[in-house]
């Protein structure tokens, strides 16, 4: 037994539970753009998982082919691919933490270790590095993302537990050509300094404004109280968030 297998074993997570959870996700997600991501670590018998990221090819407008990362077989639906993976590849080295994550309305099928946090996966496996890692223990707030519309510290959420949730990161807020009104307000007012806390601040502000479109100054401060800013950009940030409603 390898060290990693011991880790999985010690957490008491069985293969069945992984698949059950993943299955639920598959059953509820709409077909959209889907990415397959292979984890880079572990798996001494499995060379396939060491391949680079594969994006599923869209064959024609409106149709999507789901390609098995192990044998390149094509399927029409994600659940068909999942069935195939379980039936054909589970015994031949497919890692047990195969999950689907819905991040910014993109579906990612990937393998995770049970101790990987959502922050780690977002940054290092999905390449969504707007989410920062400042303390990795739920104190600084720079890794704040939205999970089903609510703010969470992604360093305190296991990737496994993020299955079936709708995750939003700063990357999903705008198309990078047009800024979201929150981003625009921060931009116009120069409401940041070094910018390391900014992604978390924006996500906290989004959760606030989604639920309370016209917050008071006190409510803005409370909503941002989980986001530390040591440069002290607080003053301009609060002004900027208060300025968002007139832009919406």
């Amino acid at each position, binding site marked *: 037994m390898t060290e990693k297998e011991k880790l999985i074993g010690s957490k008491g997570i069985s293969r069945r539970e992984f698949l059950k959870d993943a299955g639920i996700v598959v059953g509820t997600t709409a077909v959209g753009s889907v990415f397959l991501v292979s984890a880079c670590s572990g798996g001494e018998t499995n060379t396939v998982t060491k391949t680079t990221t594969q994006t599923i090819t869209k064959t024609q407008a409106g149709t999507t082919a789901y390609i098995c990362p192990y044998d390149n077989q094509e399927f029409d639906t994600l659940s068909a691919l999942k069935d195939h993976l379980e039936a054909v590849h589970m015994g031949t080295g497919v890692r047990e933490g195969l999950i689907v994550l819905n991040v910014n309305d993109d579906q990612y099928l990937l393998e995770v270790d049970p101790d990987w946090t959502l922050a780690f996966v977002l940054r290092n496996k999905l390449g969504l590095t707007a989410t920062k890692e400042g303390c990795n223990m739920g104190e600084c707030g720079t890794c704040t993302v939205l999970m089903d519309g609510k703010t969470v510290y992604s360093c305190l959420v296991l990737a496994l537990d993020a299955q079936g949730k709708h995750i939003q990161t700063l990357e999903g807020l705008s198309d990078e050509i047009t800024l979201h009104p929150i981003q625009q307000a921060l931009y116009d007012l120069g409401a940041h300094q070094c910018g390391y806390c900014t992604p978390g601040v924006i996500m906290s502000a989004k959760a606030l404004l989604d639920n309370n479109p016209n917050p008071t100054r006190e409510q803005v401060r409370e909503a941002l109280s989980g986001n530390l800013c*040591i440069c002290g950009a607080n003053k301009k940030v609060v002004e900027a968030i208060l300025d968002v409603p007139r832009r919406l």
Partner: protein
Amino acid sequence: MAEEFRVLGKPENLDKQSYLIVTGKMDFSADHPLPGKLYARILGCPYPHARVLNIDTSKAEAMEGVEAVCTHADCPIMVEEKLYWGQEVAAVAATDPHIAATALELIEVEYEELPFATDPEVAMQDGAPLVGTWPSGNVVVNETNERGDVDAGFAEADIVIEETVGWTPYHQHNNIEPRSSIAYWVGDEVYVWTCSQNPFNHRTLIRTIMGIPEHKIHLISHGTGVGSGDKTTQEQVIIAIVLAKKTGKPVEMHLSRREHMLNARHQFACKAIMKMGCKNDGTIVAMESEFYADVGSDVDPPGMSRAGSLNGEFRQNYKCPNLRDIGYNVTTNKPRTGYYRCVEGPPGNFLIDSLMERMAVELGMDPLEFRLMNAVTPELGNQDSGMPYSSMAIKECLEIAGDRIGWANKWHAPGTKTLSDGRLHGIGIDGAVVDKGAIMLFPGFGSGAIANVSADGKAIINVGISRVAGGTNTAMAHVFAEASGFKYEDVQVGEWGNTDVCSAGGGQNGSSRCPTCSGAYYNCGLDTKAQLLTAAVPRFGLQSADELDLVDSVIFVKANPQEKKNVSEITATQANPIIGRGYAWPANLRRDVHQWPAGTPALMKGMNAAAVEVAVDPETGEVEILNHVNVTDTGRTLFLKGAEGQNDGGLLIEQAQTLMYEQIYDHTNGKCLNPDFLNNKCPTYMDFIDDRCEGVLYESDDACGAFGCKGIGEPVITCYAAVANAINNAIGVWINDAPIYPQKILKALGKV
């Protein structure tokens, strides 16, 4: 003499790098997606003082996923003798950070425990355990300095007070981005992404430690998540480089919060025994001080006397003809100390202005009036050397702070005002002349500038400094645009913090970047303009570039401004590209503006004043900030939004330093009890009441800085004694050490 500027200080000018920040695209070191990247974790020493006798890393190396382990045998920043709890003993590179952390537990180390002292009061005593590696023992004395006749000064004083103030807190910078680096090797060349306040000096540091020639070190420092001095010497980049060499793969050394809080540089702690003599009218006639500086296990730069720096502050902060000081540097088994938003400024000012406040009370004088009366004047200059100041506006800063907070109507004798809700009202003020914010021209700190002009007539400047908080890169775009005649929107920051592409930008240390780099971009602007005008001469059918001028990206004939061409009309048909360059020196000395004789040397100083109004709950000891004004002299504001942001940030840090920041050590076992944000609390958005805080920028027009500018990064946080003075004014009892926790207030009030 009001000068008009086209670009400088305009509120509508946006940060050139803001878009990257609000979209999350600003690339901080650990954001670089490198396939096959490994992650490093550090094994910390479990004792405050120990020697490593033997390390067995074989079990860790055998663990699946682990690719390399380094120790003092092959990593030059690790030493056999560990001088503080948590110091780097070994580092593991593995395929994921959890594996690396698990592997640390498999490293077997045999230590020889050595006697230790984490308390400076203990370390100073005769017969105390030898803390570190100083040959002279635990204490290094900073020799006595004297000016005037101190004994005669005290003899003529009407009132003499003697006070002991301190210790000020020993604390970390609390940067949200921990120290973070990625390194990988291609042949014998190393690529490094790291968060650095000083990319070029960092490259030199790597060369010095690793013996790699600088042209084979490709260092990029783009996003840097809070510097505050901590990221000037980021030793852990060496761990990434060593492990990358051993594995042949990219290695990320993104410190965990705990690793960072223990192994990053700290702000030193200090204490002072001070004596002051005054005439009855408030004139200071003599001062004497003994400063003690707890510098931890090592100080940066090595050999730097922190006590000496404190004395330097003491000698120049207020007018005083007779002064004597001595200083003691004390080493303790605590993490290394370094720069924290200046070194001696904030704690030194806390000590000195606490003394000033006590003297004002003793005299029965208004503390603001007392400070104004003894404030350093422009004519006085340096009181030891007589060298004049290139600007001196401490009086103005204090007056503005007093005016904005309504000092005249609010100040009262200490402990005499109770609010209707039963809380105690207090108000305090503080002013500081800081030895920071000046032009730095010694090797590693000077600056060059490059501007490339594109075919469509836009200027792209490459700036050799990283993106830290204040937006200095954007400030340089302002300076270049103002000097060259380009419109602000026609200037872009191209690359920055990249040692291969940019010219040396020196370091964002000592608040020196604006005054130093601005000289380079000023000269670069002039050079670019001269080249463009020369290229334009034949297009206008003229003989000399002197007949042309460039304003708002338009070249025109001086004698007939209607005859004009856009810059793009010149550059579009230009075979040789226009490449402007400049250096920080010779600087744009404004001696003509100020009518200074040529060749007069001058000292540049930073200035800051703060006024604070508080309500203290006598039952809980809780302090509420009711009003806080922070006034900083920018000399000349270049990039308004950036300068405002820096100054606003000063408000938060001043509160944090007085009320919160401290690393607490258990002196019985030498361990730090709060290497995290939860127990070492930082101000949150709920603690910092932004709309009660006001930042004011004052422009004194410095005689040496380009366009009159100087640096403000460190001066903005200096006046935290204002918060402490306000608390003393509320409760009427002195509290001599920061941070001022509620329990200290309750104790002072006799409640616990």
